[in-house]
């Protein structure tokens, strides 16, 4: 038993324990709401402790083998993979893969198979922690708001937790999709059965249908990526052939002679780390063949010219086909994630869902479920169609993100209902996140990843704060409130901290991640595609968010005290924050402050894997625009050019 195996087991427990809790509560808690909610709190608190323990172990484990810049491998290398075939032989021999097969496409052979491939790496470890934390708070927030069929409610909530965690930790592209889709079932029931509004049934159906419509395109995209990127085989043997020409070698491709023999298509794979390698390899091979054919044409004697022209036209056609396919696959993959995040104009399900669902569920939606979309971009879209992301990511989805920032900010300003204000504010911030992701620089990506956590904390905190009001008053209409500071000083203090975090005040968490994302946009490689313009809009969005949030603060918390009708009897005196309410709110506020002051530990955890993604994208950039490579090559030591004579396969 080495640390990796222990971590793997712990990960399985973290992934499946909520399911066990769901079963326990659904069976044991039926008809006993008091017992049910206590069980739920204990279970989720225990889960949080386990998760924190796992992450502490993980971070202690990951630092020593952080790879240096030179030999950074460009595919994800998940730790803590249960079923790692190398795990039994000691810590030195992990393969970062798993042998747990779910279904093999060609039974009886070692052919392509879908694996139960889960693990931890820098990209998901923080989100797993966020999920566990927010579900704990969601259980606390639902403490006395959910009275009907509490056992089923907490059961579905825990099922949702497993589905979300599963999507975060999956490294098999189909397993990811399975978990991604499974979030729909608990969400459908949580909105439809325990929703607070009158239109909850329609909201539940709308949410599921919109998401399903998008994610079915994602399924086609996943199938397409898997089938168009098989494992490349050596031209003359049956060994995997990963001999990717570096960009320096690309620059010399025109000088090389002899026909370039690209690899052959081997078996397909569903493993995300292997797929990433395959995608880069096929992209490089196709670019390299074009460059070399160009060189051969330039050097050709007149009688060979026609031949060489045909050769060039041939490889160019193949390359064009590949990039067309990548473009469509990019759109298909993005469809599901764009709806899930949501990116304007695919957000129309969101107001209904956020205003009809119970507040604890809305909190989970904005804090965790929305991150499934952005995480999908980071884990699936960027690594699996990097060239299309460079070409269309920022211009198309960055622009949509920018439109979303401004549009949602104005919508938020216009809302009277505080829930909808929070909902649109969330959309506005997520637009920023999408821009940061598609900047695809180390700063932009780590900022975006950090912002996923920060947005989870602050958006979740906003809904947790609203649940404070919902528990006391019958409405969340901002016009019926005023001067709450006088009555609820502690609540107001917490609200102001969260609002300040939301608008990005230095010293609080959102500032750090938003500045990093802005920094990513000013990267010179993005200038061409209007990175600065997007940065301007994004910065403007920060200003807008302070506009609508401070307006809300002014209306609700300042001035003379105005109160809507209370939930209980008319003369009941609602109290300020109770102990049970204080725990999640204060913890969230404290986290916002801590992460604002000390973001470095988090950035350290994500840095290696962020560099993998950004370096992978850099390669794609170099291929698409050699001038970028030339400009950067001046600052970098030259690397040995690729040998054209095929290297002997390693046996």
């Amino acid at each position, binding site marked *: 038993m080495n640390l990796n195996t222990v971590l793997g087991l712990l990960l399985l427990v973290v992934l499946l324990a909520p399911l066990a809790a769901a079963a326990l509560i659904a069976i044991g808690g039926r008809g006993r709401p008091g017992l049910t909610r206590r069980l739920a709190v204990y279970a989720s608190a225990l889960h949080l402790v386990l998760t924190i323990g796992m992450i502490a172990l993980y971070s202690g484990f990951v630092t020593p083998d952080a790879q240096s810049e030179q030999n950074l491998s460009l595919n994800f290398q998940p730790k803590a993979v249960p079923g790692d075939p190398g795990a039994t032989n000691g810590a030195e021999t992990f393969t970062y893969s798993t042998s747990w097969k779910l279904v093999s496409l060609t039974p009886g052979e070692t052919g392509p198979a879908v694996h139960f491939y889960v693990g931890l790496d820098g990209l998901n470890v923080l989100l797993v922690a966020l999920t566990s934390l927010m579900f704990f708070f969601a259980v606390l927030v639902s403490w006395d708001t959910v009275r009907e069929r509490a056992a089923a409610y907490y059961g579905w909530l825990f099922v949702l937790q497993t589905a979300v965690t599963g999507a975060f930790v999956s490294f098999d592209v189909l397993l990811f999709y399975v978990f991604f889709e499974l979030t729909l*079932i608990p969400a459908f029931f949580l909105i439809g059965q325990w929703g607070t509004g009158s239109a909850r049934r329609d909201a539940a159906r709308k949410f599921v249908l919109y998401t399903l*419509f998008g994610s079915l395109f994602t399924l086609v995209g996943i199938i397409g990526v898997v089938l168009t990127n098989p494992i490349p085989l050596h031209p003359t043997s049956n060994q995997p052939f990963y001999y990717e020409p570096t960009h320096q070698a690309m620059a010399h491709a025109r000088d090389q002679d002899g026909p370039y023999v690209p690899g052959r298509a081997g078996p397909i794979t569903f493993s995300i780390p292997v797929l990433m390698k395959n995608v880069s390899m096929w992209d490089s091979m196709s670019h390299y063949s074009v460059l070399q054919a160009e060189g051969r044409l330039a050097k050709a004697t007149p009688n060979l010219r026609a031949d060489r022209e045909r050769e060039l036209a041939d490889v160019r056609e193949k390359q064009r086909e590949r990039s067309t396919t990548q473009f469509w696959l990019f759109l298909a993959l993005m469809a599901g994630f764009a709806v899930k995040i949501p990116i304007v104009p695919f957000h129309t399900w969101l107001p209904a869902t956020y205003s009809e669902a119970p507040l604890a569920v809305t909190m989970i939606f904005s804090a965790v479920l929305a991150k499934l979309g952005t995480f999908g971009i980071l884990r699936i879209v960027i690594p699996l169609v990097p060239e299309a992301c460079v070409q269309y990511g920022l211009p198309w989805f960055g622009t949509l993100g920018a439109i979303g920032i401004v549009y949602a900010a104005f919508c938020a300003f216009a809302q009277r209902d505080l829930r909808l204000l929070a909902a649109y504010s969330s959309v506005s911030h997520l637009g920023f996140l999408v821009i940061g992701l598609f900047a695809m620089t180390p700063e932009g990506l780590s900022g975006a990843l950090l912002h996923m956590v920060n947005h989870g904390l602050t958006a979740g905190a906003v809904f947790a704060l609203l649940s404070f009001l919902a528990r006391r008053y019958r409405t969340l209409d901002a016009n019926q409130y005023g001067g709450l500071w006088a009555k609820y000083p502690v609540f107001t203090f917490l609200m102001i901290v969260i609002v300040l975090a939301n608008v990005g005040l230095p010293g609080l968490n959102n500032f750090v991640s938003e500045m990093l994302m802005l920094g990513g946009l000013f990267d010179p490689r993005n200038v061409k595609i209007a990175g600065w313009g997007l940065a301007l809009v994004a910065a403007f969005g920060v200003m807008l968010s302070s506009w609508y949030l401070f307006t809300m603060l002014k209306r609700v918390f300042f001035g003379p005290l105005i109160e809507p009708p209370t939930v209980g009897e008319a003369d009941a005196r609602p109290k300020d924050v109770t102990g049970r309410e204080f725990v999640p709110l204060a913890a969230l506020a404290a986290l916002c402050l801590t992460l604002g002051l000390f973001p470095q530990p988090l950035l350290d955890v994500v840095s290696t894997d962020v560099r993998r993604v950004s370096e992978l994208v850099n390669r794609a950039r170099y291929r698409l625009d050699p001038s970028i490579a030339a400009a950067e090559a001046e600052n970098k030591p030259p690397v040995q050019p690729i040998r054209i004579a095929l290297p002997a396969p390693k046996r």
Partner: protein
Amino acid sequence: MNPLLDGTRIEALTGVFKLVVPEIALVGVACVLFVLGLFTSSRFLHTSLAVLGLAGAFAVALVAQPWETTLYDGLKANTEAYYPILPSAAATLIRYLTLAAGLVLMLLSTKEATREIAADYLACLLIAVAGTSLVARANDLVTLYLALEMISVPTYVLLYLPHRGKPGQEAAVKYFVLSILSSAVTLFGFSYLFGLTGSTNLSAINAVLTAANKEAISPLAVLAMVLVVAGLGFRITAVPFHYYAPDVYQGGPTAVVAQLSVLPKVAGFLALARLLGIVSGPLNDLPFPTSTQVPLLLWVLAAATMTLGNVMALMQDNLKRILAYSGVAHAGYMLLGLVTASAYATPTEGLLPRYVSGFDGLIFYLVGYALMTLGTFAILAYLNSADQPTESVDDLAGLHQTNPFAAAMLFVALLSLIGIPLTAGFTGKLFLFLGLYDSPTVTGMGNAYKTLTVIAAINAAIGAVYYLRLLGVIYLRSPLRPAVRHRGKGPMLAAVLCTVGTLVVGIYPSIVWDLVKKATPATAHSPALVAK
């Protein structure tokens, strides 16, 4: 020498009875039941006899399997022996599938087949089961036609038997007339095949057409295929041959409709696959043009079938009409398997290997479809009663409060019909999509297969709308009627079996997929596989 006296041919003709012993047993039991029904109306006797018949057929099938496999492997090498019955591996699998479906259908019918009609009902069911199994192994146009009629004729009786009301009669007559018409069209197509090749034996027809197809495309062969597809399209409810389905489903008794939604589809698809030459391979040499004509025909049929089925289902309020159109839509998905298989091109350089050949995806989906559709019908049969008919969508309102267990099973079946992961429906769609997306683009169809994958994905999303509507009615609305004690152990047991099956196949698809893969021809040029 007279070829008829050739030893192998005589063996081929006299040896066939050994290959259909389970089917003969089923028909024999059915005959006994018909006669017995005249003298006694002991339901226990009839049911136990029918169950014994199914169990006996199953036992015989198990015993015969090794021997049949050996024979089939020998036959594959010796193409001269033209058996009218071919015990292909797929046929063996389908035999077990139909026997299992027969058991479920029998359980399902216990509520509707009253004491007076039980004997006739069970007998007709057994004959239809035997017919379906026979279709899969028929290797002669005459045998095939006979087997197809063995499904239709009992169905006419079944539709008429329990229902004496007007809609029931209308449904029976409608089905009868249109079924006869489709049989006539099928026969017309068969006549072309016979005329072209001079043989009624399917192996011979395939061999001749494959050889001819290598030379040039034969327009008459394509015409024959069009006619056969039109005739069999009725059985698989392909658009535009689906018109009878909504009315018959609405008017017919639930158990019979359940049978109608599964057995003829299994038979129709197997017959089509056999005629297309994809049951026994080799998949790279097909008797029909693989570049555009036949794939295009099936492409259009699949796209129209799933789209129309799903769109029409959106507008229905009657549960059985919804299920009828849902059946049409699922036939469209299953046609994707045929499209994939019929698109097999001779492997050329640069063609990627294919892991899902289409026919395997089709059979896997048939298994999943049978599980989820029979599960849905079983619940409907269970809920339906004379004083509380379960006919329209509103009748299901608040089912989770009045009958949570039935609601949970319907929930699983509907999720599977939508295609949510961890159910058989998702896995089936995944395999079909994988195969279809992988179809060669070097032929005249270009990117049409990829487009069809997208059309199918959009259709799956449209389908979700009406299934989700049912789920919403069941779980998110309050009951409109007082809760009653539902009766019907048979349908309940059938529903439990189907639900468990749906989940097992969804969560661990290898159980079925490995069997299906073994039973279908392997893809030709799989590249040498390497370890990571």
